[in-house]
């Protein structure tokens, strides 16, 4: 999980110092998952998406240290999207015309700026949500039973009566557990999202 104590702005300031490997690692943790998800949305396989994320971060760090990235001129998000898009196109060109069956329709046109940004934002949100879940389990004093009630109910789509029976709770308490989880997650997410201040 990434470090949610440093804002993106603080992180970018630290990146100038090549010795500061903690910042580099933080930046990588924050943006790699987003880049992987983003590239997958553009139709890449998991392996290709991982490559794109790797190359994009490496390239960004180089460019940043060379002073090519000007925070006044471009948002971090657009800058990263720009690099990633270029990599994706390169891979697609290398593969030639893709011949594959599609049972899925989530392919975006690379020239659509609006769509690109939206895809990025969603991936970022997903990353936050995943981390939030993790944090709920490890960092808060939420009882395992409460979390389990939530998972059975919402994730496995099990009927409330069954959940109640298995966990030896009343239906009312199962719902209360769910509501508690929701409230905790909401708080965690809003706190975590504050760190992305430099992106917009």
């Amino acid at each position, binding site marked *: 999980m990434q470090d949610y104590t440093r804002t993106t702005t603080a992180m970018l300031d630290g990146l100038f110092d090549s010795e500061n490997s903690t910042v580099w690692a933080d930046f990588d943790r924050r943006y790699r998952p987003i880049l992987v998800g983003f590239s*997958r*949305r553009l*139709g890449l*396989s*998991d392996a290709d998406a991982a490559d794109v994320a790797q190359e994009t971060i490496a390239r960004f760090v180089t460019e940043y240290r060379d002073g090519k990235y000007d925070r006044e001129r471009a948002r971090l998000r657009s800058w990263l999207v720009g690099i990633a898009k270029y990599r994706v196109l390169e891979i697609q060109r290398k593969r030639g*015309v*893709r*011949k*594959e*069956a*599609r*049972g*899925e*329709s*989530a*392919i*975006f*046109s690379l020239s*659509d*700026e*609006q*769509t690109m*940004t*939206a*895809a990025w*934002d*969603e991936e970022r*949100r*997903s990353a936050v*949500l*995943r981390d*939030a*879940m993790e944090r709920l389990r490890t960092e808060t004093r939420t009882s395992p039973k409460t979390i389990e009630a*939530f*998972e059975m109910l*919402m*994730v*496995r*789509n099990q009927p*409330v009566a069954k959940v109640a029976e298995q966990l030896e709770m009343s*239906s*009312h308490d199962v*719902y*209360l557990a*769910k*509501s508690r*989880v*929701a*409230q905790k*997650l*909401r708080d965690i997410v809003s706190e975590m999202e504050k760190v992305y201040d430099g992106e917009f």
Partner: protein
Amino acid sequence: MDSANGQDQCPDLSVLEDVARGITTDESLTRHLLECEACRKKVDEIASDNDLLSEFVVANATTFQLDAPVGSTPDSDIPGYEIEGEIHRGGQGVVYKATQIATKRTVAVKTLLHGAFATTRQRIRFEREVELAAGLVHPAVVTVFESGVTSDGRHYLAMEYVEGETLDVHVARLRDELGQGRVFVDRLFRLFERICDGVNYAHQRGVIHRDLKPSNIIVDAEGAPHVLDFGVAKAVGSEAMDEERTTTMPGEFVGTLAYASPEQVLGDSHLIDIRSDVYALGVILYEALTGQRPYKLAGSLADVVYTISEVDPPSPTSINPELTAEVNAIVMHTIRKSVDERYQSARALYLDLDRFLRGVPIEARRDNALYVFRKNLYRYRVPVAIAATFVLLIVTFAINATRQASIERGLRKESAARLLTITNSLGTFDQETSELADIELQSLADLLDVLDEFADETERSDPIGSAQLRAAIGTAYLGRESFEIAEDRYRQTLTQMRGIYRKPHADVAEAHHNLARSLWKQGRYEEAQVDYREALRLRLLLFGAESAETAHTTHHLASTLQLLDQFDESVELYEEAIRVRRQILGADHPQVANTLMSLGGCLRDAGHLGKAATRLRESLEIIRTDSGPDDWRVSRVEHVLAMLYIDLAEFDKAEPMLDDSLRIKRLGGGDEDLNDARGYYEFARLDYMRGEDMLSAEAQCRRALDLMRGPYASGHWELAQTHGLLSRILLEQGRRKEALAEAQLAVGMSEAVNPPNHWRVGWERCGLGAALAANERLKDAWISTTDGLEIVSTTRPPGDWRIRWSLEHAIELARAMDDAEAARSLEIRLASARDEAKKARSEL
């Protein structure tokens, strides 16, 4: 109710959960929620919790899957399928290539993420939609085989496995190979025909796609298209705009918004139907032809919605100049913002693509012309008066066109050019208007519809202009021989004007005059008389006796009275109109000739054949001097003169007149109309009375009937009279059964359209009597004949040939009935009638 009691009655949390998920609609519960704010708040909280948690579930799907006991290899996940590999991983889930174990066929299995359905209702909807989609079997539709639940509780869909490339990739390759001109367009249209065919097939089975886009269409190695995910969009709720998603639009939908129709982005879910799919096909077509989407969607959601629902896209030709105006029209017609203006089905789009490929005129272009026209009316707020002027221009052409139909084509171009001039003169020229210059208004009727609508909508803002426009529309319909519609428009005009003008006004007088004309044209002379008299009263009041307007109405009233057999007053009014016209226009003015011609006809009807002939020749001379031998009025006078000669059995004089009359009518070419019908009728009568060639008489008569049936669909004395003549001709050929049928038709119609005891009714009764006699129904024949004869002999001038005809047949019948006495008395009357005829002929 005190608060303690209120809380006692508050439902359990589980019940509120159901409310929040929308799976209960208990009435008492609803009542409680209306009263209890605490419960309402709780329901809102639950709904908002569920939204957030669903989002979590989707985002953490992979994590949760890893946690699942089965592990990451999905092989055993999907019962009945053997997974061969992953094809795609995306926002909604993962797609695998698999073999269905039972059938051994290769399929694509799409698994949906956990939490794809936030509510039970959504899950039920999914299952129902899949069931519908599973019924679709068409070469251009990817067939869904079944749906089910994996062992760890995820939903999946098994569908036909298609290998190929997505449409956008395919099109990009076509463009590389073929350029973007006609060859490319042809290939693309052929491909789209097949897509339309598949989409139409699904529509006919009640399945709307709702999320058509290039990535949902796979083109295989043979170039055949396959549309994916039919019904899935609605089922999974991933259509660009679901009713529940309009307020908060997650980014994932933005990508598909480019293909969403205005009604979809506006959340008008009740408007979403097959035409929303048509719209998406249009956007796909637009993008394929130009390489660009119609809109650059940017900014906030509100901006995007505004752009899609309000902004006009640039025309495809402006991006790809190799496209023709027709291609342009097809694409633009497909992506019209109003559902009603689009192609109404994928089939309709298919047909136009097909027309284009066959080089036949397309439908879209026709509508486009009207659309542009309508748009210009509104956009430039063309003053209604100018619109009215425009209609009058059309009317002029329309009326000419009924005589000279060959110019109809020219008329359409001309009309368009005129509108262009009008909008130009208002300083409102733009690119779109310029398209009008080369459009052809396919049908005047369509144009009049648009103008009708315009008159309706401007009624409040510009009542006078609107009334004038309506009057002009009425005149246009009159010119097109749509008399009832014309009447309706004139009546509306009159109602409107009565509300506007309190005192006598020239416009009101004109409206009465026009209404009377439309009634006259329908043969409703009694009613016409009333309005003509009112118009005349007003015009006398406003303009005095010595005015062109007054003379005009006087002339028309005279012609109405003539047809009501009020010959004395009719002659008097004609004489008055001639006097005034001579005085203000000059003795030899064509309008004087017009009235002389009508007076001649009236005198003929009144039995003053000699006087009639004099007036007619006088008229003919003026017209020939003024307008030359080919003028249409020459034809009219010759026609009346010919009628007169036929009445007098002067067939050799009648024939050349009739020939020349018809020659002039035919000069204009084009479709034949009522005037031609009248010519054929007289030819038939000539042949019949001459008694030489009944087959020719029959042919001419039938030709006249064919031409009359349309405009006289609701009956007319001319039509009745023509049936009557046909009956007599058939009788002469011994075809008595057919003759009887025609005679019965003639009498029935004649009684319906003429006043009781009108001579025309009597005349047809005599005809029926003869037909009955031939069919050996002597008693019926006698009643019909004597009734008819009574009327004809008292209402027709004594020299009229009809009296002689009726007497001759009555005598024959009396003899057949062995009534010698009756026969003898009829013979005496016949002798006297023959004397009268001789006298009339000598008057010439």
